[in-house]
């Protein structure tokens, strides 16, 4: 098991190098001079020149990249923000809690709603509940998050005055953004739970359990659910990873200072070190969540565990 984890983490290294290179190239191609953006429109030529030298922007592209990698590897230094002068890691860690909170809220909502709906849908296949749940799940999948966000604000903030439309300091303020963000996950979890349940319910071992004279409810809860949950757990994990990194639109609508907004703002401000560090961070977070999911997978599915040697 340990060896498996180590191998997975080692495997991350080339991926991260690739990600860094990708982002580096993209930023290199992006129009807009960071020196001009950071120092302001009125900056003198000398100041700009000095900034370029200090940040190594005057060097050839590959040199810049090599330098970045060298510093990151030898000193764990991924640079400082051009704008705030703070270490990039501090910037990201300041923004991360908001994103984490949002993602956690959203995934919890998604599981609380999606799982029972999916199970019920599967048990009562072809019922009106099933059809409605499936169609609503499809609508949830099809709803653009920015539109849903606006509708939620319109309903709960403007008309009903129940919940604040922005911020994230209070529990109430978290409700709307997490709801908007979770719509997709709810739908996916519902659909996945249902199809997984349907598949499992038809499995031979469920018939075996029934042939033992076991109660239907026990058959469903003990035998079917555990097995059906295996792919759902994976999905939840992947969704959580997605939410951690992909809440850009939600964060911008609800004014949540998370990683997504930090990234977009940094791209706009040409704060390259933050963009680079941020994307790397997101990639690491995403990969680690995936690793955790795989480990969890091993925990709930003994067949998988055997492969992680």
């Amino acid at each position: 098991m340990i060896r498996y984890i180590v191998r997975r983490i080692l495997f991350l290294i080339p991926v991260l190098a690739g990600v860094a290179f990708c982002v580096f190239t993209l930023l290199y191609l992006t129009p807009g001079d960071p020196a001009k953006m950071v120092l302001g429109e009125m900056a003198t030529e000398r100041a700009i020149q000095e900034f370029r030298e200090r940040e190594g922007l005057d060097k050839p592209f590959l040199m810049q990249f090599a330098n970045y990698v060298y510093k990151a590897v030898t000193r764990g230094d991924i640079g400082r923000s051009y704008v705030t002068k703070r270490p990039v890691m501090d910037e990201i860690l300041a923004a991360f809690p908001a994103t984490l909170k949002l993602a956690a809220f959203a995934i919890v909502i998604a599981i609380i709603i999606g799982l029972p709906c999916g199970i019920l849908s599967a048990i009562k296949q072809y019922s009106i509940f099933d059809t409605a749940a499936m169609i609503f799940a499809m609508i949830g999948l099809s709803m653009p998050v920015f539109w849903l966000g606006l509708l939620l604000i319109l309903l709960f903030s403007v008309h009903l005055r129940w919940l604040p439309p922005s911020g994230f300091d209070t529990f109430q303020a978290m409700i709307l953004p997490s709801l908007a963000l979770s719509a997709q996950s709810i739908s996916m979890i519902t659909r996945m739970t249902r199809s997984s349940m349907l598949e499992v319910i038809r499995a031979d071992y469920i018939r075996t359990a029934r042939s033992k004279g076991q109660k239907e409810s026990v058959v469903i809860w003990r035998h079917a659910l555990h097995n059906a949950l295996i792919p759902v757990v994976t999905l939840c994990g992947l969704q959580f990873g997605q939410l951690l990194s992909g809440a850009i639109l939600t964060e911008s609508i609800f004014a949540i200072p998370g990683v997504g907004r930090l990234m977009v703002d940094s791209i706009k401000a040409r704060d390259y070190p933050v963009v680079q560090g941020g994307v790397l961070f997101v990639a690491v977070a995403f990969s680690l969540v995936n690793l955790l999911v795989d480990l969890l997978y091993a925990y709930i599915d003994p067949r998988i565990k055997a492969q992680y040697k």
Partner: protein
Amino acid sequence: MNDLLEIKDLTIHYVTDGGTVRAVENLNLRLGHGETLGFVGETGAGKTTTALGIMRLIPSPPGVVKSGRIIFDGEDLLTKSEAEMRAIRGGKIAMIFQDPMTSLNPVMTVDKQIAEMIRLHRDVDKAESLKLAGDMLELVGIKRERMHDYPHQFSGGMKQRVVIAIALACDPGLLIADEPTTALDVTIQAQVLELMKKLKQQFGASMILITHDLGIVADICDKVAIMYAGRVVEYADKRALYANPTHPYTIGLFNSVPDLDEDRESLNVIPGLMPDPMDLPAGCAFHPRCAYATSVCSESKPEMMEAAPGHFVACPIRGRERK
């Protein structure tokens, strides 16, 4: 003598959007105490449906038991409540399924799966049930230290032993084995069959063995029922049937078994295919493929007749010939 199991006029249909599948039609069977019945037929003949019908485990929808009675130990199973049925399943009638690879819950250790059965039907506590589960495993030839393993850690043959252990855990009166060896390697098949034969005797249970392998039937069965398109077409004592196959379909079956003694180039295959169960031919379902068929065969359903004492056959032509 009272039979352990008597099935009368059992009809089971699957009703789907595309039409009705007549999986079992007017099926009649009897099985005595301690007897082993071989239940033979092609895939799709309705053998498994019959077995599930006895267990009352027909998936519904789409399955519907249209008519008939299943009298087990003097009581009609079809009139039992679900709760009563649960006590019978596993406790009095146990089933072994075809594919041991999939019939065990992959996320539960095997001892727990056996213990679950024991706790459902016997008044024991958890620890006791686990101990008994270990005993059962030893009985089927699996070492006790492996009781905490998961199914995927066992080979196919061993999994089937586990399944057998589960089925016999509560000393059932009737054991239904649905092609228990089809999914196994040939070498393992013999071992598992041997084990079943031994344990069946040890536990004094009756058994229905569903198979399409006439060799296995010859090996362990006392009686044989041949099934075709949802009906039993021939039912007899094993010796009588092997000595004197009467129904044209049975004859076809026997001819299609390669005989090592004879030196022939090709097998005698029954011409044609199994009919579409949604659209069975009128009259005898076998008549389009039957060499003996006359005009009568396509007009009326053949009744079961006793061609010889204890030898029933559902063919007016061949049945009368024998008489």
